[in-house]
């Protein structure tokens, strides 16, 4: 049971759950699905600098050290912040759509849609 196997299956399970949820037709599960997918991609980004356990992210001089790649960690940090903000935005918009439309279906109801243009 290597760490690579654990991380890879975590990514796989999260992605599968995310894709299943975004194919639902109500807003709330879909937003949960996008959250799952962003967790998956965060772990994926983290592993893109190779998995090294217990090593510092910076070199101490030019010696022959083992170190972990610091860049993916920075990328993950950015991705987490952006993903967090985006989830908040989509929740607000979805909530507003639910409150004004009276339902939370994800697809457009195509009846007399052009009537209520502002």
């Amino acid at each position, binding site marked *: 049971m290597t760490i690579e196997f654990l991380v890879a299956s975590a990514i796989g399970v999260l992605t599968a759950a995310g894709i299943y949820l975004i194919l639902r037709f109500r807003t709330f599960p879909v937003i949960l699905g996008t959250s799952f997918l962003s967790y998956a991609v965060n772990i994926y*980004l983290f592993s893109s600098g190779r998995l090294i356990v217990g090593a510092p992210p910076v070199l101490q001089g030019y010696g022959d050290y083992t170190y972990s790649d610091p860049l993916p960690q920075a990328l993950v940090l950015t991705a987490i912040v952006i993903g967090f903000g985006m989830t908040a935005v989509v929740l607000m918009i979805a909530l507003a759509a639910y409150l004004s439309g009276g339902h939370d279906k994800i697809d457009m109801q195509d009846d007399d849609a052009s009537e209520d243009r502002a």
Partner: protein
Amino acid sequence: MSHWIITPILLPTLLGAFIVLSVRHQVALQRVFSLVGLSLLLINALGLFVYAQTGDIWVYELGAWPAPFGIVIMLDRLSALMVLLTAVLAMCVMLYAIGSDWDKRGKHFHALFQFQLMGVIGAFMTGDAFNLFVFFEILLIASYGLMTFGGGTRRLQAGTQYVIYNLLGSTLFLFALGTLYNVTGTLNMADMAARIAVLEPEHTALLRVGVVMALMVFAVKAAILPLHFWLPESYAAGPAPVAALFAIMTKVGAYAILRMFTLAFPQDSPEIAGSYDVWLLPVIVISLAVGMIGILGAKSLSKMVAFAAIGSVGTLLIAIALFTPEATAAAIYYVVHSTLATAALFLIVDLVVSRRPQWQDTIREDRPMPQNGLVAAFYFAAAIAMAGMPPLSGFLGKLLILDAAVGNWWLWGAILISSLIAIMGFGRAGSLVFWKGYGLPETDAPAYEHPRQPLAFVAIGALMAGIVAMTVLAGPMHRFAIATAEQLYDTDAYISAVINHTMEESMAHEKEGSSYAPVDKDLIQTEGGERGTDHPQEATDGHEGESH
């Protein structure tokens, strides 16, 4: 060292923040600051455009961190053209939004508009793949606000779809970037191109996966079939000035394809061959067909123009996906035309919507609206441009694309037949909306009054003037497009511009110090990537800074 290259990104950022913090309650002041800011942006963009004419590639290192480690902002002919196009479009759209009082229908229109510009211009100028992602997010998060601006059930529901679709696109982009970083160990586009060229064959499987994922992300932005579902509803439901501004958003996707796939992932390189070149053109042709048939099938003018936008991007992407210098030159000519024509049509549709209280933009006959003749004339000219009929620039653009596609009879067929369908669609809609009304029996209802809105017409007139200018100045424009395409395919120059810039900088540093002693302890500790991963701390700081 001049800093004018960074000001098109900084100016909207600071102005947007200023507007939202200081003048959020005074619409009149917001308008003044917006217009002044956009004028400065336009002058700045013109200056950069003139600079780019020299053929130099301007490399600007943020925080003076050397190139593959830090983030670079790049300016070549293509970037300069796109920035200028964005500035011109933004100016016209802002004039329309002010002239039609759209910006009073909700809060923070001007601030969101500025942030949107920051994202779009940043995406056109960055030379770093992850930074491209960050600018995509900036332009998207501003677009979410603009898209649902003014509220309303339909707009909010379409907005939810739009946001979720783009969230998935962003997630996919991160997967693509992770994969590309995994293979190449760099995020700088030029550095990535140089490393892919010398990649060992056993690593190319993962590279191909990353390339195809990146292409899918850009396809979502450019609305290529089957990733175009978000576009018609969002554009039709969104506020008209926003939809007009979004005419540049699909071009961001097209630009990203043009930039990344000529520079880093050329289709004939042995590492990538066969991964996307076999299916890209057919898919684009189908999306062109869907767009043009949508024009014929749409029930409302705004939907029709949204489909016309898909078709127009499809035409553009045919030229891009041929990946020859002639075709790329045609694409560069067409991208300017397509942006102006799409934006003008969206604005004209909004004129119709506001002047027909009962039927709005539904394609059916109604009593002649106020200023019917003027609106109809604008629609007529814009539809001619969009459909690619002579004499306007749409015709010249399509001619250039056809000329570049000689030998591909199926591309000729697709473009010509789809143009015919578009002409039929535009003709049918125009005659129903603008002409049929004169034949209706007179009613007793008083004529609908509507303010004349001269500024709104000036804004659309400016866009149309741009199209006419492109037609009249087609010769110089095309020469510029050819020069741009040559610069794009001269990837060695682009790569060496980045790498040599770094070397010159470091030599200058060495001259400053008295001896060749390795600089100082702090630098060595943070610049840990000298051997090994190549990605020291400074890139970290840069990315973190961008994210907030």
